[in-house]
């Protein structure tokens, strides 16, 4: 059954539109498709007006936290005599999240164009794109695009004869999820272990090399050229009052047509499922994440929650990276939680005791429950561990780890009890476990 017109009208192809042109990653094709027109337009404006434009657009960060982008840019102190930096967070790795790598594969120049405009606005002459190490395929396209942009005079010194200088380096990580956290990313980019810093001070004043730094997600920066070209009113016709613009929703799991659906912010999962052809035959929706594994899971009760920053928060979760991982009645929420906690235990950088020890022990408790050897006390111990984790670590990794645990116990306590009380056959034999690496 094809989706209704009302639901189809929620599609807002903006950042994903060029993906349909197979050669859009080449600069010649990109230029034919409005490419670098936003830059030319922006360079005629005053940098402060660009910051105001992005503020007025209501653009919020696409990396998970949803911080207002223009406001972040305006925190950069001007005329302070220090070098400013732009760092793009391309360390995509939050389980379920898969929107930034396709953007860099299929339309890398849109990110580069956004980088140059942003550098001009915040008065930065150096920018780094910190891309996840494993994303070799996307980094290859991105580096090729950067070289093309240098050759065309969009990067380097005296860009397009305006006197603007921007040096852009694509920097590969080396396999550490924690480096997606902005201050850990900065430490990693400085050549250290990727461990988070205490905030404040924030990167806006003490970022890369203790200098004023904007750290933004790929999708955030790639949105900038469209806002510059189309203007605030055009941008704000998409989304809601407080969550403006289009958003790439990534549907994965037990749906007929998983994939990337760029829609007006505030679309519901019911509508997204209609676009994606519904649940797979024989599967009934049981639980789902609105924005990656670090966002508390939702159930079929939440099919009509508008997926914008505030509506999702009002329901006790977070919009995160709009990575909707969709699980069915054939999937076990306890096992899903166990695997996610194994992930957090492995990726905890070890700096903060609650996160390092809490995740270590939660893995063991969950394994015990799934092996049929759990006790009723185990549920209290899990919740107690979460109490000691939430808000008690430097960064959000620890907070994120509590999300699957507390939300699965909230909605699926019976599933836990069924293992504990012997009604469900143990799912795990400790010898068969595939642990996190």
């Amino acid at each position, binding site marked *: 059954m094809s989706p209704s017109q009302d639901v189809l009208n929620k599609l807002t192809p903006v950042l994903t539109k060029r993906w349909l042109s197979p050669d859009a990653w080449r600069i010649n094709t990109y230029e034919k498709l409005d490419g670098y027109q936003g830059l030319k337009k922006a360079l005629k404006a005053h940098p402060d007006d660009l910051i105001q434009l992005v503020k007025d657009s209501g653009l919020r960060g696409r990396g998970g936290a949803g911080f207002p982008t223009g406001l972040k840019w305006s925190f950069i102190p001007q005329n302070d005599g220090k070098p400013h930096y732009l760092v793009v967070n391309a360390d995509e790795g939050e389980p379920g999240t898969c929107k930034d790598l396709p953007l860099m594969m299929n339309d890398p120049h849109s990110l580069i164009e956004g980088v140059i405009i942003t550098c001009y606005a915040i008065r930065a002459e150096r920018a780094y794109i910190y891309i996840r190490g494993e994303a070799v395929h996307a980094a290859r396209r991105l*580096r090729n695009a950067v070289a093309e942009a240098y050759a065309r005079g969009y990067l380097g010194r005296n860009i397009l004869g305006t006197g603007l200088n921007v040096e852009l380096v694509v920097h590969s990580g080396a396999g550490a999820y924690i480096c997606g956290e902005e201050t850990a990313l900065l430490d990693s980019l400085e050549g250290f272990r990727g461990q988070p810093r205490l905030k404040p001070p924030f990167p806006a004043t003490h970022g890369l090399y203790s200098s004023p730094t904007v750290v933004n997600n790929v999708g955030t920066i790639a949105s900038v050229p469209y806002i510059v070209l189309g203007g605030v009113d055009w941008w704000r016709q998409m989304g809601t009052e407080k969550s403006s613009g289009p958003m790439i929703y990534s549907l994965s799991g037990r749906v007929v047509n998983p994939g990337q659906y760029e829609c007006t912010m505030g679309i519901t999962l019911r509508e997204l499922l209609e676009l994606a052809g519904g649940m797979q035959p024989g599967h009934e929706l049981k639980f789902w994440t609105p924005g990656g594994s670090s966002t508390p899971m939702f159930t079929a009760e939440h099919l009509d929650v508008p997926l914008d920053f505030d509506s999702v928060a009002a329901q006790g979760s977070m919009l995160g990276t709009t990575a909707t991982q969709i699980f069915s009645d054939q999937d076990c929420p306890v096992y899903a939680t166990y695997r996610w906690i194994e992930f957090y235990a492995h990726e905890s950088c070890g700096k903060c005791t609650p996160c390092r020890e809490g995740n270590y022990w939660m893995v063991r408790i969950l394994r015990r429950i799934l092996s049929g050897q759990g006790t009723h006390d185990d549920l209290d111990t899990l919740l107690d561990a979460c109490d000691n984790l939430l808000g008690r670590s430097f960064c959000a990794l620890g907070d994120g780890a509590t999300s699957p645990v507390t939300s699965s116990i909230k909605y699926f306590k019976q599933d836990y009890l069924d293992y504990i009380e012997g009604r469900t056959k143990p799912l795990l034999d400790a010898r068969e476990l595939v642990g996190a690496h």
Partner: protein
Amino acid sequence: MSYEELDTEELRTRAAEIRARFPEGRERSALLPLLHLVQSVEGKVTPNGVRFCAEQLGITRAQVGAVATFYTMYKRRTGGKHLVSVCTNTLCGMMGGDKTYKALSEHLGVGHEETTEDGSITLEHAECLAACDYAPVLTVDYEFYNNVDEEKGLEIVKRLQAGEIPMPDRGATPAGLAGIGEQLAGYGDGRPGAVAENATGEPTLRGARLAADHGISVPGFDPNTPIPSKQEGK
């Protein structure tokens, strides 16, 4: 490889190029790419590789070692010609990744981060590879194979063992672990055509295609919309 064999003019030139990507006095930022670079030469990060990085950056070997051991992509044991990574994070694992990993592990006779006797393959289970719309996924030298079940996974590794290189569904021809290190160090892919090699899959394009098929676009886009100015005299 002795230190003298590693510490060549060519590698020192590369190290200088990498340092130049960062502001003066901030050369330590070059450490991650330098570690990728020495790994591409030696297949792993050795004490000599650590020493090379330390000397190039003017920091201690202990400082280099502390960083090298933090990141999973720096290997301390010699790997196989190809690295096969099976995603066993929650979604991929539950949709079949766990079974595929087990089947590959049994077929190859190796566990996590172990290498087959013939040196052809190192196996690992990976965390979320950011390709969930293609779940379950597997990568060879970080190039992607989509919707991999046990059968497809076994065919891929059998062909690798036979010296063939099956084309990935997305990304370029697997370059072998040694070939990847240079790119991770920040260099372009020197193979002609490699950057063009990729078949974007339908899941990536689904939303955009659905909109295009139904003639849907965001109305009112005018690239000449003025940028409001508060600046006097602009």
